[in-house]
């Protein structure tokens, strides 16, 4: 059992602006723990988490693979989330490299097919289109959940980026809910980008039916 990262340095004020780890975070941790052996043996060099929020997930990944074995890049559009992720890295003795940007903008040019592990717990809650767009512009906590049509507005923008970034043997872990239409996501990723996938974990949490989908290139 790998311990959940220490988040005791984060305060209620932080969680007014930054998403507090919840069931959707924990299912992603559990999916990574379930794959611990492969994640270690694949000899990853670069990991990239999109929307790292509190920094809990990348810190957890580092306790599986080791803090010095991998470059742990994280991005978040919310500057306060970048501060929280950095602080969580320090608290857990892992150097998380935060970049305040949208998705993986700025990293695409230099990390072409070079990222071994991609993690994304996206804003997946279905909302009206406008609400998701405004939430991204506001760069605050709303951007961590408001997902627009089908809850896929932000995730859909990331798919071409993950195709550009993912290494040949890389793994992409995505959190999704039933309303996102998971079979349709899997079908599109295979058709458009030649990525096979598997739902590696499923769980009901209150009203949400959560899944973690793992994508890998079909060779």
């Amino acid at each position, binding site marked *: 059992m790998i311990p959940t990262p220490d988040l005791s340095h984060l305060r209620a004020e932080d969680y007014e602006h930054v998403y507090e780890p919840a069931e959707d975070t924990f299912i992603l941790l559990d999916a990574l723990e379930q794959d611990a052996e492969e994640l270690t043996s694949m*000899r990853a*060099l*670069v990991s990239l988490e999109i929307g790292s929020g509190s920094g809990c997930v990348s810190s957890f990944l580092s306790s599986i693979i080791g*803090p*010095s*074995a*991998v*470059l742990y*890049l994280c991005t978040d*559009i919310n*500057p306060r989330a*970048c*501060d929280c992720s*950095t602080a969580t890295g320090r608290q857990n003795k892992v*150097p*998380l*490299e*935060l*970049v*305040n*940007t*949208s998705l993986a*903008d*700025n*990293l*695409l*040019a*230099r*990390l072409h097919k*070079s990222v071994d592990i991609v993690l994304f717990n996206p804003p997946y809650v279905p909302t009206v289109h406008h609400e998701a767009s405004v939430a991204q*512009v506001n*760069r605050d906590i709303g951007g961590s959940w408001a997902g627009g049509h089908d809850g896929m507005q932000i995730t859909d923008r990331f798919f071409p980026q993950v195709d550009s970034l993912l290494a040949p043997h890389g793994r992409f872990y995505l959190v999704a809910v039933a309303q996102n239409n998971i079979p349709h996501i899997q079908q599109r990723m295979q058709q458009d980008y030649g990525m096979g996938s598997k739902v590696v974990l499923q769980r009901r949490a209150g009203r949400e039916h959560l899944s973690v989908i793992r994508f890998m290139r079909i060779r």
Partner: protein
Amino acid sequence: MVRLITHNLLACHVKGCTANNFPLEFKDVQVVLRESEFNPDFLRGFIPKIDWAALTGAARQLGDTSLPDQLPEMLDDDFLKTLHHVLLEIHVEEGIMICPNCKHNYHIANGIPNMLLAEHEIG
């Protein structure tokens, strides 16, 4: 944290700025050194991903001239320790990174680079 390993991966993405948009140039920097665990296997694996000229140029801008102009063929422990220090232990806490092409200024505050663009700058 802006360590040189991260700086080596960041390009400008202002609308239309697609050539000569890397590496970003440091200006008015404040630097802090923090020790980190030496991992020669990680460094050997990561070396092929490094743009060497960008790394040595950026290190010089930060006042560190310990790396050779050319990547040596023999990756001995002395060299790897020097590389480890330059890539992973120098943290730029405050400053600006300027695009060599469009001159866009990206600010670094509390060790975090703000790479966000205004709506009209997004491609």
